[in-house]
């Protein structure tokens, strides 16, 4: 087991280095220059020497190899440098946006779990009934509907409904306040994005729960439990659902990791100042250091999630660690 764990942990290193090299190269293949965007996008004129000075200030006048070594060395020391756009430390930029992204991810996960597990289980237990069909339609609707579109529609719906009822249209706040400062304002801002993201997330998890439950319910040990005369409620809760949830938990973990930084469009639709919106800004501004740090953050979260999942599987299933 220890050898297996060591092997898996060591494999993380080349994965991260490979990802770092890829993101570094891809960023430099995109046409454009942060100095030109910064000096020229306002429409005014600027001295060409200003570009050279800007390159020197940002360290872009060094060779690509030196820049790459500097980037990897910084990453090893957990020093992500400063944003080329704002001049602020990358960690400051990310930490300023992380709370809202984290809050939406947590709330969306709560919404998803509350919907997915009961409905997925019911759908499996009532297979091929009208209830099963209704749940499947609901799930497919969630998968097929983009979260951002649902977000736009939900805002318009809220505006129109409140206008019709009260005569004054209402929408969630467009600036974030931490939950400990003003819980009502905070939750009224986070509620709609959490529901719209949570719906898609729930739909994916619901289908996974359903198929896992169907598979488990046909297992020998369930048949044995029934033969022993256990009541159905106990069979489902204690034996079937617990085992069926293993792949669902894995899926929820991966989806959660995706939500940190993956809500690119949803954050724009709701004017959430989150990590996803920062990602878009960083790419648009061609801010190499910030984009690299954000990609590496995402990659690290995914790699670590996968590592935990791999280790969890090995712990649960001896066949994997001895393979």
């Amino acid at each position, binding site marked *: 087991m220890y050898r297996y764990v060591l092997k898996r942990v060591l494999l993380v290193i080349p994965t991260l280095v490979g990802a770092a090299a890829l993101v570094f190269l891809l960023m430099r293949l995109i046409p454009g220059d942060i100095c030109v965007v910064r000096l020229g996008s306002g429409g005014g004129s600027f001295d060409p020497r200003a570009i050279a000075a800007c390159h020197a200030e940002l360290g872009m006048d060094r060779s690509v190899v030196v820049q790459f070594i500097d980037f990897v060395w910084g990453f090893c020391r957990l020093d992500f440098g400063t944003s080329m756009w704002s001049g602020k430390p990358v960690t400051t930029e990310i930490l300023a*946006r992380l709370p809202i992204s984290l809050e939406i991810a947590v709330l969306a996960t709560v919404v998803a779990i509350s919907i997915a597990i009961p409905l997925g289980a019911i759908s499996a237990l009532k297979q091929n009934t009208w209830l099963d069909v209704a749940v499947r339609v609901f799930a497919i609707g969630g998968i097929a509907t983009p979260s951002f579109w649902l977000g736009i529609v939900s805002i318009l719906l809220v505006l129109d409904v409140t206008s019709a009822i009260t005569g004054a*249209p209402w929408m969630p706040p467009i600036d974030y306040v931490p939950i400990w400062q003003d819980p009502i304002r905070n939750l009224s801002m986070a509620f709609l994005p959490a529901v719209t993201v949570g719906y898609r997330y729930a739909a994916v998890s619901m289908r996974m729960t359903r198929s896992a439950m169907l598979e488990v319910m046909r297992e020998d040990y369930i048949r044995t439990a029934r033969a022993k005369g256990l009541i159905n409620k106990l069979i489902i809760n204690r034996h079937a659902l617990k085992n069926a949830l293993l792949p669902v938990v894995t899926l929820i973990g991966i989806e959660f990791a995706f939500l940190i930084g993956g809500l690119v469009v949803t954050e724009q639709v709701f004017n959430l100042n989150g990590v996803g919106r920062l990602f878009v800004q960083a790419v648009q501004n061609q801010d190499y250091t910030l984009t690299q740090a954000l990609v590496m953050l995402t990659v690290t979260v995914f790699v670590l999630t996968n590592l935990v999942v791999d280790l969890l599987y090995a712990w649960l299933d001896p066949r994997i660690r001895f393979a």
Partner: protein
Amino acid sequence: MRMSRLIACLGVSLGAVWAPPARADDAPKRGGTLTYMIPADGGPSLDGHRETTFAVLHATAPFYSVLVRINPDNPASTTDFVCDLCTEMPAPTDQGLTYTFKIREGVKFHDGTPLTAHDVATSWRKIVSPPKGVASARENNVVMVDKIEDPDDTTVIFRLKFATLSFMPALADPYSFIYSKKILDQDMHWYEKNIMGSGPFKFESYDIGQSVKGVRNPDYYHKGQPYLDGFTAIFAPKQAVRIDAIRADRAAMEFRGLPPSTRDQLVKELGDKITVQESDWNCGNVLTPNHKKKPFDDVRVRKALFLAIDQWRGAAALQKIANVRTVGGIVFPSSPLAATKEELQQLPGYWPDIEKSRAEARRLLKEAGQENLSFEMLNRNVDQPYVIVGTWLVDEFSKIGVKVTQKIVPTGPWLEAMRAGDFTVALEANCQNMVNPVADTGRYLPHELYSENFAYHDDPVQAALYDKMLHETDVAKARVLMREYERQTIDVGAHQLMVTWWYRILPIRSYVKGWKISPSHYLNQDLANIWLDK
């Protein structure tokens, strides 16, 4: 209710600012917090001297004073400059080479230290000739300044290398914040990450990428102002968010400009709860053929492109869907140096008889052996109005048999392609913060003289005309020179063509009073004269 909606709609359809006559109950009221949106993400730094994006100005202008500004009560004027920190507008002496400003006494920075002429002079020196390693975005606009002197606490003297009409507008540049000499002496980069001025509002907080907050400066030197207790500026780059926020009164307004469809939607939905202010905008799209790429090295081909465009009918149609409106030459239409309609109609791209114009275009193409011309037009992925104007141009070119495809790319690659000369024809823009006709038209000069001109042409006649105009101080004579320069740019050399000026439309919650629209989204942004009728 119906009557008020009718009035609002009429105001909109006439394209005018509806300004009711002043009444006793229109006296400014004190108090309240203005929430407005900045239609962008946060700017790179907080230093107005360094940055070019309006996002920085909209977030920081209320904290700062300037030496001279456009009259906040008459911002539509392109020539009405008034003092902010100075006591009276000086008459130039020494044949227009010396301007002596007296600085207000008793002005304090927000940290309580007095503001003197030395702070003004140091700030301007940073703009005019920044030390090594310090960026100044508008250094090119103040090339006429030779020396800045501050002989005592209340006097600042600007000595020019040559007398020019473009000095006063350059001095009234809204980014020219007055910083503390004491701070600049210690760290020239301090203002990139910090805010401390002497303007109508004191800095309260900045949530990175989200919002900026300010509170009333009780020691503000324009007595009685500001009227607001404070303001909150929220960064909201998505147009849909901004429209919804105005509709739900999460924010009262934005200061850049929205397209006509959103104006109509908000007026329809909110009736008398919304007022609309509109103005010609000191921005316009520019059609730029790359003279280094065949066949655009041939003046006949370039001129044929211009002749294909029906600006008069095009502008009338485009204004219904895009924020463009007025047909003009290279000078902002309301400026004293702008061409009249009759003068414009002499130039290719402005002929009143479009059939005759297009016949001439076809003749020129045939003569140049380019009857089957096709090319790719580089454009920026910004709908309002780049993509809309670009799409219209593609259709206009098709009317003389020229096949054009648009290559629409994000800002970075768009700028990069133009700077590298990697395009045949580009649709770009000339968007300036001050209406400064002589300085603004410098962008049509050859690339060697103006680095951001991407036509890559060479025209000594044009350069000589510009130089003469830059040194002219008589408006009437400057106007004559401007016509020659314009003709050289659009007709003789067919270097570039201005394609419809933009139009600024601002739907504003009706309770916001006191603020007047200007031809630029960079002007009149200190919020000192705004009050809330709530």
